[in-house]
């Protein structure tokens, strides 16, 4: 088994001085900054953010234990909290009360991405009241109740803030509730319940993720996947709420992949700046000193590291046997293109029985996404052409994600190499190419010319001219825009000419000759075109063969092997004489 770890810690973590008796560490989720406060600030505060390589360092007077410390956006204002009821701004500033709400609150959670705060209310704490902050105003959203596994009697605080997290998944805000198993209630294992929190309207329970185990868990969101870390088994699970489970009730999800641990991580002995030859020690994963923040942050305060969690797609390919499901999964991931293309190559490589239906399913899934993008693009173009309309909001140009795998991607990375590969039956090659063309047609996507060329080349290489004719007859190998439709006559001739051009441009001179002979057109084709192509290949025997072919044609048609002046083949005759000598030329037959 090769590498199966589909989760990993980023390799450029934010490093800070580890937490100790003299050094307190704080993390600000809004700015994603780590504050290392030494001796209450007297011997230094070091702030490290995610992008800024230059950390901020300053000193401040030790006025007691710091409970919380944060910067405003842009590091303009520093706020320090030392007591439970006061916040100090090092610069003198005035604060104005804009709006107040009076609610009994057990605890709160804030989601900086969406600027929504969630308050736990009531005695049991399971009635959640969200507020949204937008352009200086605070608006109350509709409150909702989390279903508790057991209702305690007498009532007491039963919903912990550790079991609630907020995150954006596929552009929507969800409240995630880690519902532990309970011996009394009929729930043998833990699950994560997602509540969809729309901007307008009521919050609804929308998804249930089955964890199939019990114990301590932590949640992350990476690339729209819900990652559930399980401490005792030191493994993680991933869920994709858009993947439908055929054998499950709607919106109940099983893990996409079997549980695996995060990829082993090694910490260089003397920090990340030293030479790579320095020995490294393995980092203890799933350590109890880890803190997990949304969406994808893992902090080890004891070791002084902040990592971003990442999904590695290549290992998923071998873990998910159902290729259709695998495609559904990959198509929703951010950096999916190369992995998808490698999966395509892989299923074509196998060539095992029954792979064609799988190939068809995969192509259909790719083309579905491709088509949606083309349509969005077209709608956008049309909207732009008709000018900005007053009624509708300005159209946004559709984003081309990596999941849009177009014909040129398929050609370059998959099909072209596949058709060249030794040991693959031509039957299978043609079947695959036709399946791709079928799928494109099914989604009404105009097929690019180079795909037809690939089919034509393969057919000609194996002398399958009759198949080629049949495809032409049913317009399978033609542009969707009809060329000449007045009568069937010019229609087919045009296609023949095109095929000859294609073959000549691929240096398939003999193939082109064989093809044109099979359609009975060799008496009328331009000899010069073929001789040019043959000469260009630099293959002397090929040139000889083609030259001889046309001499024989001339003999048959005109009783003389010489070329007519109108054919403009003088230079080829000279070339032929140079290569093979005057005597090699065919002499006119004497009757």
């Amino acid at each position: 088994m090769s590498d199966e770890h589909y989760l990993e810690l980023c390799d450029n973590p934010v490093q800070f001085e580890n937490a100790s008796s003299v050094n307190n560490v704080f993390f600000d989720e809004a700015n994603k900054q780590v504050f290392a406060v030494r001796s209450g600030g007297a011997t230094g505060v070091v702030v490290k953010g995610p992008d800024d390589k230059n950390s901020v360092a300053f000193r401040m007077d030790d006025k007691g234990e710091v409970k919380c410390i944060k910067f405003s956006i842009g590091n303009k204002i520093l706020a320090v909290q030392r007591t439970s009821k006061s916040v100090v701004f090092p610069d003198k500033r005035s604060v104005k009360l804009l709006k107040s709400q009076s609610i009994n609150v057990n605890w709160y959670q804030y989601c900086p991405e969406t600027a929504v705060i969630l308050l736990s209310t009531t005695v049991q704490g399971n009635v959640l009241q969200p507020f949204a902050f937008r352009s200086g105003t605070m608006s109350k959203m509709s409150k909702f109740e989390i279903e508790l596994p057991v209702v305690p009697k007498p009532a007491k605080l039963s919903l912990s803030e550790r079991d609630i997290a907020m995150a954006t998944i596929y552009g929507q805000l969800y409240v995630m509730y880690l519902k532990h198993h309970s011996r009394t209630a009929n729930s043998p294992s833990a699950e994560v319940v997602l509540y969809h929190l729309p901007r307008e309207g009521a919050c609804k329970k929308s998804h249930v993720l089955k964890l199939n185990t019990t114990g301590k868990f932590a949640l992350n969101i990476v690339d729209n996947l819900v990652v559930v870390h399980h401490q005792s088994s030191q493994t993680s699970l991933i869920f994709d709420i858009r993947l439908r489970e055929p054998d499950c009730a709607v919106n109940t999800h099983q893990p996409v992949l079997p549980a695996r641990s995060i990829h082993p991580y090694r910490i260089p002995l003397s920090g990340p700046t030293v030479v790579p030859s320095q020995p490294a020690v393995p980092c203890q994963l799933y350590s109890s000193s880890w803190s997990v923040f949304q969406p994808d942050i893992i902090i080890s305060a004891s070791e002084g590291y902040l990592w971003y969690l990442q999904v590695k797609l290549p290992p998923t390919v071998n873990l998910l046997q159902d290729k259709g499901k695998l495609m559904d999964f990959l198509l929703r991931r951010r950096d999916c293109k190369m992995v998808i293309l490698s999966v395509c190559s892989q299923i074509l490589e196998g060539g095992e029985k029954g792979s064609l239906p799988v190939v068809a399913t995969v192509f259909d899934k790719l083309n579905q996404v491709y088509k949606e993008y083309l349509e969005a693009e077209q709608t956008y173009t049309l909207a732009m052409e008709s000018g900005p309309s007053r009624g509708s909001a300005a159209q946004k140009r559709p984003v081309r994600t990596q999941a849009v795998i177009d014909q040129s991607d398929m050609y370059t990375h998959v099909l072209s190499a596949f058709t060249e590969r030794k040991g693959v039956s031509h039957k299978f090659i043609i079947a695959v190419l036709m399946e791709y063309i079928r799928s494109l047609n099914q989604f009404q996507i105009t097929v690019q010319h180079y795909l037809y060329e690939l089919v034509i080349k393969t057919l000609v290489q194996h002398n399958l001219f009759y198949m080629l004719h049949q495809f032409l007859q049913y317009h399978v190998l033609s542009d969707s825009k009809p060329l000449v439709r007045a009568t069937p006559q010019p229609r087919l001739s045009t296609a023949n000419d095109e095929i000859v051009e294609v073959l000549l441009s691929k240096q398939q001179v003999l193939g082109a000759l064989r093809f044109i002979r099979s359609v009975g057109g060799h008496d009328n084709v331009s000899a010069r075109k073929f001789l040019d192509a043959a000469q260009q290949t630099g293959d002397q025997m090929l040139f000889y063969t083609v030259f001889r072919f046309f001499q024989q044609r001339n003999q048959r048609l005109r009783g003389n092997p010489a070329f007519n002046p109108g054919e403009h083949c003088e230079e080829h005759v000279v070339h032929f004489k140079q290569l093979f000598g005057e005597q090699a030329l065919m002499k006119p037959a004497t009757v």
Partner: protein
Amino acid sequence: MLMISPRMATGMQEKQYTPSLLSFFIYNPSFGPREGEEEKKILFYHPCDVEKNEKIRNVGLCEAIVQFTRTFCPTKPAKSLHTQKNRQFFFEPEDNFWIVMVVRNPMIEKPNKDGKPPTIEYQEEEILDTVYGAVLRQCYSMYKLFNGTFGRAMEAGGVELLTQKLEKFFYRYLQTLHLQSCDLLDVFGGISFFPLDKMTYLKIQSFVNRVEESLSLVKYTAFLYNDQLIWSGLEQDDMRILYKYLTTSLFPRHSEPELAGRDSPLRPEVAGNLLHYGRFLTGPANLKDPEAKFRFPKIFVNKEDSYEELHLIVYKAMSAAACFMISASVELTREFCEQLDSLVGPQLTLLASDICEQFNINRRISGPDKEPQFKFIYFNHMNLAEKSTIHMRKTASVSLTSVHPDLMKILGDINCDFARVDEDEEIIVKAMTDYWVVGKKSDQRELYVILNQKNANLIEVNEEVKRLCATQFNNIFFLD
């Protein structure tokens, strides 16, 4: 053996006789070169009850004619001999093997008064060499499809085996020759293609590829709908003769029971819930029958320089028929047939109804009931595509045409003219019966149109044909 069908002609008392087969024989001059051994040359002779010496005489005569005419053109020996009463056709399909067909000319029997015997008038110019020459070549091709070459039988079992095979094959085959209804279509020996949109066509491709992938024994597949070809994995010449066999022999034989069973529900005995209409036209009639035999006809197809022997499985669901060809060296079992039935049956049934639906949609788009108002025959030499609105559906016994034989003769004559030159040509003929007949030859295609416009002049007819080409021929084959 008599196939004379008298039909009443113009005069009340006149009787008209259509062309009929007088004799058909196969010989090889090298088998009895010495005097007294002439009988050894004869490999097959129809009718068989002809006296031995007469057989020898007739064969000898043909031999002499061929030898004699060779002196004028060594590369092209005589192809036919015209006499007042009959016409003989010669064909040498393999070295020294000659097939001869003697056709009695059509004739009119005019009764005489006073009890005298009736006068017979032979219409020796009414039949065309091209038509019957083609029929003769087709006889050989059909033999070869099911038996391989004469040479192959000789290698396997000498003259004895060859004569056995010839006897077995031609005894039945000659009964199915209907010389009176042979015409231009026999010259072409074309294939009628089913008009189909690209998407449905691609679905069929997909079906064929998948079946060939999961039943890896299948070497070639052909797909037909409504007795028209959609896909052939066989080479063109093999498909041409197989198509002829399917459409004039196998399908008509099975069309009766199918029509009768149209109202019956889906086959209830099918295992599982995959109901389908699929059934074998060759091989086992009923898979459930414990006595069922899994024997299929064998056919021979060309492969590079040799030939290849194949089992021919023809499987049909509703109007869709798939021919699967499997190397004859493999023995086909019940398990294989069941596997094929369960795999192909449901898919083919679905595909058949898809094609039917798509075809109806396309026809509605292209105009309601826009059956061409004119009669034509189209043929493309390159892909052998033919289309005729003159011929009614072919049945096992006869092919019906909707026009008078005189007009068919004119079409044949024009075709002969076209065959003489390479250039594109157009011929317009005003027939005796007020019909106009137009023949066009362009590149590799030929089109024959019959117009019934009594008062039209040449210019108007020319315009009309131009108009028809523009409106009808842009989608004569393709509806997409």
